[in-house]
């Protein structure tokens, strides 16, 4: 008899949908069917039970090939690398639970390491903006129940968060929004005619890299000032029209994405978006939200803030104090400046997602990858330690893009005796303590 598990959380994007129904095999080892998930989420569940999963740690040999080793040996090697390095970097956490992040935090503190997460190359700019200017936000249910104007600025949920528009923003019927899509105005601001732009009522095709000027124009208009006839490729009347809709909203939300964080000015594009949201609150109710990428990439920011006081780029090399300054203590900067001498890549794929020169710099030193799957990072590592797939083979707490905690469940047993991230890091910690005793 196959078994149906309801209320399952999806370990893909920051929308962290928790209404997935998964049918698993009788023995609880194989995913048979997935309902309610998007195309990508579907793939995640099925991939966990594909044949050919790596179930044992692998160590790179002098000839460049991998050899399988025991967990015990892998844990010992990882512990020694962390203890011996002058400045190890532990980076990733896009795809793990808070329990794993917490365990890794303890290891990093013990190792005198720099602890960083994928936000470093993703929504890190949002953190910098929040540090400087705050974050007037809300939970996604507020948007669903109240919002009548939605702005997608430099974000493309149609591709990056496939169910975002249907679950939270454009289409759902909420308490005060019984008309669903019919009762909402959608504004999309993007240099490309994206699939999200196609469902919007208004698309402002901003000149790439000039969002800051456009925000500045919106703010100037909201403060009653005049603006030039054309700003960032957008005619004045289009700006006035959009600003008018935003001012008249009962409840509005700006969902912004990588287009702001990855282009010139980085944090200040978000910073001024926050200022604009604050301005709009002089007229009506407005909120803003970062379209966080992974299902639990908000997690490390939350967990490490309560443990270390900072969400990312946490330099613990001083051991008695923590220092954070992205631009200095951020992974790509550390790599490019040759400031670190060991690299642990966990729950992400720095091999595929860092600019290649950063990968080459990090490769000068020991590189450990902790990940359930074969990925670019695992294929260039010195040591690959496979772990259980979070959200499929183990549960735990994850934080959705609006920082709402969702308690994920496991749906199948971990493949062939694989450890969870938490178990692995706890064992590395214990081994480091033993090495301390021996020294």
């Amino acid at each position: 008899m196959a078994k149906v598990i309801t209320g399952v959380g999806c370990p893909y994007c920051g929308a962290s949908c928790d209404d997935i129904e998964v049918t698993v095999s009788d023995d609880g080892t194989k995913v048979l069917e997935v309902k309610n998930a998007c195309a990508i989420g579907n793939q995640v569940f099925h991939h966990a039970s594909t044949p050919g999963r790596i179930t044992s740690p692998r160590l790179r040999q002098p000839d460049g090939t991998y050899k399988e080793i025991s967990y015990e040996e892998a844990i010992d090697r990882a512990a020694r690398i962390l203890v011996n390095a002058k400045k190890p970097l532990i980076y990733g956490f896009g795809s793990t639970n808070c329990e794993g992040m917490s365990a890794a935090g303890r290891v990093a503190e013990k190792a005198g390491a720099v602890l960083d997460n994928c936000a470093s190359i993703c929504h890190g700019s949002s953190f910098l903006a929040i540090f400087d200017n705050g974050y007037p936000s809300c939970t996604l249910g507020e948007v669903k129940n109240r919002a009548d104007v939605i702005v997608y600025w430099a974000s493309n949920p149609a591709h990056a968060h496939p169910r975002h528009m249907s679950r939270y923003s454009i289409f759902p019927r909420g308490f005060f929004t019984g008309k669903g899509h019919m009762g909402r105005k959608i504004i999309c601001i993007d240099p490309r005619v994206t699939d999200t732009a196609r469902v919007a009522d208004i698309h402002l095709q901003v000149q790439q890299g000039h969002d800051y000027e456009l925000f500045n124009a919106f703010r100037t208009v909201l403060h009653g000032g005049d603006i030039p006839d054309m700003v960032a490729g957008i005619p004045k009347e289009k700006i006035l029209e959009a600003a008018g809709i935003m001012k008249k909203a009962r409840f509005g939300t700006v969902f912004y994405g990588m287009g702001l964080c990855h282009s010139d000015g980085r944090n200040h594009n978000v910073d001024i978006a926050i200022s604009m949201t604050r301005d709009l609150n002089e007229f009506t109710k407005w909120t803003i939200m970062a379209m966080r990428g992974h299902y639990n990439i908000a997690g490390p920011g939350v967990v490490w803030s309560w443990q270390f006081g900072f969400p990312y780029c946490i330099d613990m090399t001083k051991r008695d104090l923590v220092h954070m300054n992205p631009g200095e203590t951020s992974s790509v900067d550390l790599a490019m400046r040759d400031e670190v001498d060991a690299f642990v890549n966990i729950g992400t794929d720095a091999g595929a997602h860092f600019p290649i020169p950063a990968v080459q710099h990090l490769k000068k030193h020991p590189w450990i990858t902790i990940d359930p799957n074969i990925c670019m990072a695992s294929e260039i590592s010195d040591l690959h330690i496979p772990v259980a797939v979070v959200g499929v083979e183990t549960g735990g707490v994850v934080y959705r893009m609006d920082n709402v905690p969702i308690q994920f469940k496991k749906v199948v047993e971990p493949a062939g005796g694989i450890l969870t991230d938490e178990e692995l890091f706890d064992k590395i910690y214990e081994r480091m303590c033993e090495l301390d005793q021996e020294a």
Partner: protein
Amino acid sequence: MKTVTLTMKNKPELILECNNVTPDAFAGKSLADIGRLEVYEGKFRAPLADYFEIAGEAGETAADTRIVMKGDCKRVKRIGQKMTAGEIEIEGDADMYIGGWMEGGRIHVKGNVDAFCGMAMKGGELLVDGDAGNYLGAAYRGDWRGMQGGLIRVKGNTGNDTATFINGGTIIVEGNAFIHVSTHGEGGTVVIKGDVEGRVGGQMVKGDVYVFGNIQYMLPGFKYMEDVEKEIDGTKATFAHYIGDLGERHPTSRGQTVYANLYVKA
């Protein structure tokens, strides 16, 4: 004034953090004591003497102490951090946070420096003959109290975020600046002798910015008022006077709204 000379003898494998290299820390100490001051390379603490040849003599007070740094200090951070008096001369390049949180005295770097130099400076003088990196004279992350006093002069170019959250003091860049000058500024004066790509004075509440060269992308929130004659850093010229950021809040003083001023050389 007495001089202590530090000459790099063992370059760090990674990077060296030397927040103890200040006249304040050196004053009144013997060379041996100075050599025992702690520096960091990653998580390893070591005495200063492991990396530098130390010669000369320290003064009794910080004001009476001059430090000269020779050899390759391109990977040495935090020189002169929080210094209150005295002098530091760096003969070549230096890394991040040079003169960070500085309160007095003088630092002269003959080469280039990296990012975050002169961070949240309160007083004193930082002179860089070469280029400076990003976030020159900016605030620490999250702090609304950026540079509050003192003078920073860079003869070369700077990157982005010059003078972010500046509240006071003066920054003069003799070359070009990239983007974001005086963002969130609420006081102080910034002079760019060369060109700026854009985003000058964004979210600025008050304070003054002078640009001698060209601003490629002017912010829509700045409004032209009139041409004015000004003498800036020894140069007399006509400037187009703009006020802004009209998208930002502005205080009132004696019934008048106070704006930030942007002067662009005509």
